[in-house]
């Protein structure tokens, strides 16, 4: 079936470097994508979202890029900090669904001192 998934299960970066977390989705009709950050034992925390009519959206230290041609989503974190260490999930809202999110497999980001 169609799903959202991440390329890499783990990512380690040096503190201060930029991080890039990738996500591939297979449902070309999906029109809304979200990145969540989840720390151990806590609920997913909204980071940034993007609609399918956009290619790029920026937040504070984060940028989401959407490439509809290759059905690819990425999250860029600038100047990665120790507090950024967490599991990052991309999620999509399938078309025709009221609002339910389909999550991809998470990427564990570890920030090294």
């Amino acid at each position, binding site marked *: 079936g169609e799903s959202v998934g991440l390329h890499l299960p783990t990512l380690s970066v040096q503190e201060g470097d930029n991080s890039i977390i990738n996500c591939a989705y297979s449902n070309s009709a999906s029109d*809304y994508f*979200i990145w*969540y950050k989840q720390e151990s*034992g*806590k*609920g*997913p*925390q*909204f980071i940034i*979202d993007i609609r399918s009519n956009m290619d790029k959206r920026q937040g504070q230290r984060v940028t989401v890029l959407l490439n509809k041609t290759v059905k690819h989503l990425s999250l860029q974190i600038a100047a990665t900090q120790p507090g950024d260490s967490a599991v990052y*999930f991309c999620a999509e*809202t399938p078309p025709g*669904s*009221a*609002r*339910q*999110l*389909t*999550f*991809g*497999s*998470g990427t564990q980001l570890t920030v090294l001192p």
Partner: protein
Amino acid sequence: AAGVIQSPRHLIKEKRETATLKCYPIPRHDTVYWYQQGPGQDPQFLISFYEKMQSDKGSIPDRFSAQQFSDYHSELNMSSLELGDSALYFCASSLTAGGADRTQYFGPGTRLTVL
């Protein structure tokens, strides 16, 4: 800012027992969602309610039921608990009316352990 509240935060039950999880959405949010997250897995959508009516249904077992009340809080009722039901259960809420904002905000979760 007020967030989604879930209770209890931790729950331990025996097999075949029942459990009730509660969710209090962000004030003025009209939609509630329930997700189940097993160890090392991504959250899986269970069910959602908009304006007290079921709006979407995912992989929710027949042993589970849920409802949204007039004050918009929601309860997830789980019966005949099985070991495999041990998981984190998250509630999320959003403001659906108007259609502009589709962001779902998650609560801290309830960790259910079935022994």
